[in-house]
């Protein structure tokens, strides 16, 4: 950092000039911020103001810019100086908009603004302009794993956009599960009858596309590298291995039906006349090839009565079977009942359901089935008793509250068993200690669990497949980034991500294709993918100081960091999402980003002026997640929701990036309290970096020890969940905490 020149600019627009003493702020920047060049401007974000800054960069050699104006989330296009390090002091949303415009409040409001100027100046000096990752690859080829509807749609959509595709399918033909269907639920007006699956059309589109290279009877044997430069080995049936250079990957490995043999009480596996939905599709296909009459498997007699059992092994609260609803099976059973009714209205078709869920335009389809005479019975099936060529379905009728209801002499029983994701190896289970076996717990008798086979065979330190949710579907940020996995450049689409039908899978496929293309383009330019899309900073490590503790490699939520033979971390920048979890984890603080580091935040914490304990001006540090909490605070300002003037807010990339040294520093410096604002963690997390807030909280849970050594009350540190919608709640939380701290009393560390 040889010759840096810092300039500070204070805006007077948007009422800043009237509410604040901007001349004093300029002086603060010069005196406390030690900035050689400090100016104020009436309207900094207009052409004239921006031209002033540009002129200073060109003629005065300014390298580092501190802008005291609006929030860093506002006017990002006007204040865009990619060659320079830029810090923003949030005087508008963070100060004047959250403070009352009264004479009494004037002094504390000015104090607040002055501190933000000091913090901004300190921060910018600790930064350098990010230069972008240079360890990039240029492959533009998309790998699609799985040749079902999702995979084929992904391939076609990517090819249409001009990107070459390699499609790997493990069986001998394209089509997947949908290829085995007789017909599909309708997606066009008038939604009354089953429609053609459209699979043949997709297959011919894929085969006709010279941009799509298809490997049949093939699997992914090895995936190495990072977005833009994946090297993928594809193993084919003949034993030959083909190596492809890949930019990004879409995993569309679909689902398997829940095994009905696990449902003996529903007759699964006990009679050929009890089948799952796949079994009925096969019967319907066979019938269509013959005389159109669906026959029962046991004696080949035409089916005269059929019962569909919904939620078979699904939505099970006991934990034995699937806990979730697969979402598609109600429509599928309605469709299958129509196979019978459309061919012969005299066939008795009964659907026994607890809640009929027909997403999409399924309500019309449902009504059409009622018109065709399909009987819908609300009940919970207790038992299916096969007896010769027929079965008796015993159920609890939930409308009539009749626990002994039954359908007797049923020719065919169809179980709607639901989707289980083909998501490969559960890598979290791999790392869990295997204590059950040691305690001598007997293995479940008679069941042979098929060990899942890895799909991607990643060479990553954290395991060969993408992480899963507890239900086995691949993990993704469900609300904001549905297709993203926790492996950058690898996307999942279709039923491997969550249960879904063909229409949803096709939508998913299109979305994932476009996301994958974005990822490989960003990777080539050395930029981050979502959620810090376009970010040029990346983690740098000072290996001399590394103690090989492996916390960064273990904690990285995205598996971006591998280890070399000496157990030093190897950063794969293209896989990194720039959350800073590694930086927060590092006990020796050798990991940093050019514009975000232990220093940039630490310098801000130290720059705040701490009044003595008799001034009755406490200081509260807020470390606010930039994805949810900080926007919520900004929006609180936009709605003029006032909060305490004693808080000093520092945006952080993620709760996971919080290094505990910041909290220790703050408490040592005499802050009265520290508020941590992060996203919801746990199974229903909202963290944009998936595990960041959880890991951050685990780290913070140990802060009590630190407080004890400092002889401080545990109220001094508060961990809070804040969502982006907490615009009303967040000021309230701040004010309550400020009042609580008054009761605790001032920090004993003031004035040292």
């Amino acid at each position, binding site marked *: 950092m040889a010759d840096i020149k810092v300039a500070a600019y204070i805006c007077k627009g948007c009422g800043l000039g009237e509410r604040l003493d901007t001349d004093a702020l300029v002086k603060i920047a010069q005196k406390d911020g030690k900035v050689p060049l400090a100016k104020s401007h009436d309207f900094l974000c207009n052409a004239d103001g921006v031209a002033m800054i540009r002129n200073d960069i060109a003629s005065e050699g300014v390298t580092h810019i501190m802008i005291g104006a609006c929030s860093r989330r506002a006017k990002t296009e006007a204040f865009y100086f990619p060659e320079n390090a830029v810090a923003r002091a949030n005087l508008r949303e963070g100060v004047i908009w959250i403070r009352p415009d009264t004479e009494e409040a004037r002094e504390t409001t000015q104090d607040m603004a002055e501190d933000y100027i000091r913090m901004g100046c300190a921060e910018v000096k600790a930064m350098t302009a990010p230069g972008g990752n240079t360890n990039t690859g240029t492959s533009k080829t998309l790998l699609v794993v799985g040749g079902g509807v999702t995979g084929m749609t992904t391939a076609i959509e990517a090819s249409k956009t001009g990107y070459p595709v390699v499609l790997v399918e493990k069986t001998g033909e394209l089509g997947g599960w949908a290829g085995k269907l007789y017909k599909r639920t309708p997606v066009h007006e008038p939604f009354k009858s089953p429609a053609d699956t459209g699979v043949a059309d997709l297959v011919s589109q894929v085969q006709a596309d010279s941009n799509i290279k298809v490997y049949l009877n093939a699997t992914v044997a090895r995936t190495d590298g990072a977005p833009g430069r994946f090297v993928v080995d594809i193993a084919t049936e003949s034993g030959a291995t083909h190596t492809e250079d890949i930019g990004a990957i879409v995993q569309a490995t679909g689902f398997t039906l829940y095994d009905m043999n696990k449902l003996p009480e529903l007759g699964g596996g006990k009679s050929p006349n009890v089948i799952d939905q796949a079994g009925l599709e096969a019967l319907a296909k066979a019938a269509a090839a013959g005389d159109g009459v669906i026959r029962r498997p046991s004696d080949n007699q035409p089916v005269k009565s059929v019962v569909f059992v919904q939620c078979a092994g699904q939505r099970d609260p006991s934990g034995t079977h699937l806990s979730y609803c697969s979402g598609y099976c109600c429509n599928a059973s309605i469709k299958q009942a129509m196979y019978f009714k459309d061919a012969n209205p005299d066939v008795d078709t009964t659907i026994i359901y607890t809640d009929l869920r027909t997403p999409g335009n399924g309500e019309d389809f449902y009504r059409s089935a*009622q018109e065709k005479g399909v009987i819908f019975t609300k009940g919970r099936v207790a038992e299916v008793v096969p007896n010769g060529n027929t079965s008796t379905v015993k159920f609890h009728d939930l*409308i009539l509250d009749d626990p002994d209801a039954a359908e007797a002499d049923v020719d065919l029983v169809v179980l709607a068993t639901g989707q289980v994701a083909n998501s490969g190896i559960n890598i979290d289970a791999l790392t869990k200690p295997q204590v059950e076996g040691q305690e001598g717990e007997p293995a479940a008798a008679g069941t042979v669990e098929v060990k899942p086979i890895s799909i991607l065979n990643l060479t990553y330190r954290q395991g060969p497949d993408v992480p899963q949710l507890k239900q086995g579907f691949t993990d993704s940020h469900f609300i904001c980034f549905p297709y993203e996995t926790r492996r950058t450049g690898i996307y999942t689409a279709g039923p491997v991500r969550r249960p879904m039908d063909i229409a949803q899978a096709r939508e998913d496929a299109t979305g994932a294709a476009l996301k994958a293309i974005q990822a490989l383009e960003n990777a080539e330019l050395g930029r981050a993918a979502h959620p810090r899309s376009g970010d040029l900073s990346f983690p740098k490590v000072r290996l001399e100081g590394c103690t090989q503790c492996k916390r960064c490699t273990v904690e990285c939520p995205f598996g971006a960091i591998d280890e070399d033979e000496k157990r030093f971390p190897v950063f794969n920048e293209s896989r990194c999402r720039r959350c800073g979890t590694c930086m927060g984890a590092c006990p020796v603080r050798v990991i940093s980003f050019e514009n975000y580091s232990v220093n940039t935040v630490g310098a801000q914490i130290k720059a705040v002026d701490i009044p003595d304990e008799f001034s009755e001006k406490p200081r509260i540090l807020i470390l606010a997640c930039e994805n949810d909490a900080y926007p919520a605070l900004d929006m609180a300002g936009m709605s003029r929701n006032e909060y305490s003037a004693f808080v000093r807010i520092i945006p952080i990339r993620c709760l996971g990036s919080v290094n505990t040294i910041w909290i220790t520093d703050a408490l040592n410096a005499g802050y009265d309290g520290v508020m941590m604002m992060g996203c919801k963690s746990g199974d229903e997390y909202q963290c944009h970096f998936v595990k960041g807030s959880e890991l951050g909280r685990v780290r913070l849970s140990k802060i009590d020890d630190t407080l004890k050594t400092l002889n401080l009350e545990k109220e001094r540190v508060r961990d809070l969940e804040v969502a982006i919608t907490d615009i009303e709640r967040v000021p309230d939380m701040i004010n309550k905490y400020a009042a609580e701290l008054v009761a605790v009393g001032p920090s004993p560390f003031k004035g040292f």
Partner: protein
Amino acid sequence: MSANTALAEKYRNNFLKEIEEQVEMGDWVKMCMQCGVCSGSCPTNFQSAWEHPPQELFMMIRAGKREEVLTTTSMWNCTSCYNCIVRCPRKLPITHIMHGIAEYAHRIGKAPKMQATRFFSGLFWKNATRTGRVNELKLSMGLYFKDGLGAGIKEGMKMKDVALGLMKAKRLNPFELFGGHKCKDQKGIQAMLKKAYEIERSRKAAKMAG
């Protein structure tokens, strides 16, 4: 063989089909999606006044509970407020179906004999068609004595003050008990009714046979 056994024989296990073919608007029953809005909207269904609310009746029909449906008093409680029809998301004409089932149960002799609504309907019809004019005194007396002499006197004594008030206001003429007023063309009315019965009888007979 009674009408009931003949029809039960004809449809055997398929009560839904029987309702669809025999009951006015009965073909709507299959379209019910069991949301329960009708039962929740019914103003007479408080305090379990209905043994089986409409949604449940529809389910019972699909489940083939013929005897229970036809002998229940439930649909006789309907006062035709039309709340259910207005609210039904599937647009079922529930009020009409209720009356349809009641009428069918009555037609084949399964309706509960002493159910008040049914009893009153019969009473009203007899009363009105005898002279062409409704004799209100006889009608209300008939209803009071539905459950026997003692109960009738008790009920009458309870209503005594109302009756005296009505008499004072010249709204009730005690001499109506003896004969009462009539419409002018007695013979014409009877001929009209005879023809109407004839038409209805042949239509329903055809339906039941068909």
